[in-house]
């Protein structure tokens, strides 16, 4: 049961980090490694801001004063209404955009260096498969681009195809697959180089509810197996709670972190049974209250009662 073993250290890491959180506010430079817990962090975001300038010169503050640490092996969900900057934050970590202010490190490196060193795998809302490549060739794409041998690519893609349950579809083309299957290929592709960090921007956003819940269970299983840290952007509260160790609730205009909810769903692997768990409902309520600003009054989701 590797699943249990790797959930526990992650939880401990996040606990110790929370205790020493104040000491981390100093500017982060090269001395990170000397800190007791810093060396194991996957992502460290310190006082990051992002301002977009439109063509007409107007500025939009997408993110302001963002502080966030994701420990190695930790699953963090970013949730919030549209325009709260959750995707922007993920794109900053991926070095697809650069922050206007503040510092951001991934495994102790700059975001750019981490990208060039392939420290993370990424999956978007659209599967984004190359339509002219078979499922296998799509999964092997990053390996091919980085000069892995044919034998190594074949071995790795076979492993991943089995992991995402698409062993029989290796030679199919993406347009022959359903949306859920395409998204699984995209996830397999993001895992191709065994990254220690997965960045996912609403990867299940385009799927129907049934497929979505199955994919969530699969992802939980895959994460338990690969021990990768995950930054998962979503706008679904149950999805965020079901998957994450911590849920980061963000608020819009400007994008800020409103609250961080620790999800205590036990150390075991997350299976569909947890969706009936009292703790699950409690966490869902907590996230919802933070999302609605103050303690929500009046009408609330019926399913928590």
């Amino acid at each position, binding site marked *: 049961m590797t699943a249990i073993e790797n959930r526990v250290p992650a939880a401990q890491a996040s606990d110790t980090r929370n205790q020493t959180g104040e000491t981390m506010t100093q500017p982060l430079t090269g001395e990170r490694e000397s800190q007791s817990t810093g060396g194991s962090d996957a992502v460290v975001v310190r006082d990051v801001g992002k301002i977009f300038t439109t063509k007409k010169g107007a500025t939009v503050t997408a993110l302001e004063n963002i502080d966030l640490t994701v420990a190695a092996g930790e699953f963090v969900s970013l949730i919030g209404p549209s325009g709260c900057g959750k995707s922007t934050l993920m794109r900053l970590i991926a070095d*697809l955009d650069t922050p206007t202010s503040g510092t951001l490190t991934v495994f102790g490196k700059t975001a750019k260096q981490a990208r*060039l060193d*392939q420290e993370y795998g990424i999956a978007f809302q*659209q599967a*984004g498969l*190359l339509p002219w490549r078979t499922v296998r060739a799509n999964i092997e794409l990053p390996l091919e681009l980085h000069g892995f041998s044919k034998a190594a690519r074949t071995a790795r893609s076979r492993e991943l195809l089995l992991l995402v*349950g698409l062993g029989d579809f290796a030679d199919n083309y993406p347009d022959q697959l359903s*949306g859920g*299957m395409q998204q699984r290929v995209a996830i397999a592709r993001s895992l191709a180089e065994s990254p220690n960090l997965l960045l996912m921007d609403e990867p299940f956003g385009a799927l129907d509810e049934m*497929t979505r819940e199955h994919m969530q269970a699969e992802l939980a299983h895959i994460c338990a197996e690969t021990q990768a840290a995950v930054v998962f952007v979503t706008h679904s509260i149950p999805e965020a709670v079901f998957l994450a160790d911590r849920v980061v609730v963000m608020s819009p205009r400007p994008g800020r972190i409103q609250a961080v909810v620790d999800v205590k769903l036990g150390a075991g692997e997350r299976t569909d049974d947890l969706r009936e768990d009292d703790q699950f409902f409690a966490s869902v309520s907590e996230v919802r209250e933070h999302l609605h600003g103050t303690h929500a009054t009046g009408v609330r989701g019926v399913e928590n009662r």
Partner: protein
Amino acid sequence: MTQGQTPTTQLMAVLPGDDPTTASRARPSSGGTGNLRRVILGALGVVGIAVFWELYKFLGPEKGWAIGTTIILPRTNDMSMPHVWTMFERLFQPLTGAANSKMMWEAVVDASAFSLYVAAVGWIIGVSVGFLLAVLMQRFRTAQSAVLPWVILSQTVPLIAIAPLVRRWGSQIEFGSFVWENWMSVALIASYLAFFPVSIGALQGLNSPETAHVELFRSYGVGWWKTLIRLRIPASIPYLIPALKLAAANAVIGTIVAEVSIGLKGGIGRTVIEFAGAAGGDPGKPWAPIFGAIAIGLIAAGIVSVFALFLRRFMRQETNS
């Protein structure tokens, strides 16, 4: 392939919404019946034109019909409108009255082959230049601003105007044993027409990948060159194939027109002009090289289509079922 049933595969094997049969059903079958239908319809179109020709020749006024000096309906006598079968019969008669004369069809085939060769050289040059221009314009935005207007402007210059210029410049080229020949001028002019659709189509194709795909490649930390080879060029194929067909048609037209303007002997363009003079006494003769010209166009387009068959997988589009 080994079906290693790990717990993972079992877990993921049975999921709703992932029924492989629905996925495979989503692809429309384009079987042989569709192709046969297209061939028959195409042949019917040609027959239809011939029937219309003969019908008008049968029904129309012998001397045509004119209002004042403006001819509204053409004359239908055998000199002006030979029968369709006269045109074909003429193909299988000797070219001239001389004893050792070639058959008409042989002369047409020879001239067509020569023109097709020149057009092919022009096509290859045009496609290469057009594609390189597109890559340049994709790479550098400033290049696009600087080059694109000229690319479009280039096509407004009348071919007849540049043909003699190209010939004169070419005749001054001479280094070592290399001598610029007239057919090279014709090929160059053909390429001048052929490059245009390729540069426009390829530019559009190279810029066609979605942001998500471009960002994916960025996340892989690979540079412009690998992104070009692995993403942009494959993505440009659906735009490129129609452009290549247009380029083939343009190269053929450019070759025929340039042959005439430059006065290159041996090609189908010159033959069309020469034989047109014979219309008075030999009404079937001018049609023979016209059929040759049509055949070149069809062969050129056909070659590109066969070439496209090998690129079929790049025509696939990502769709969410």
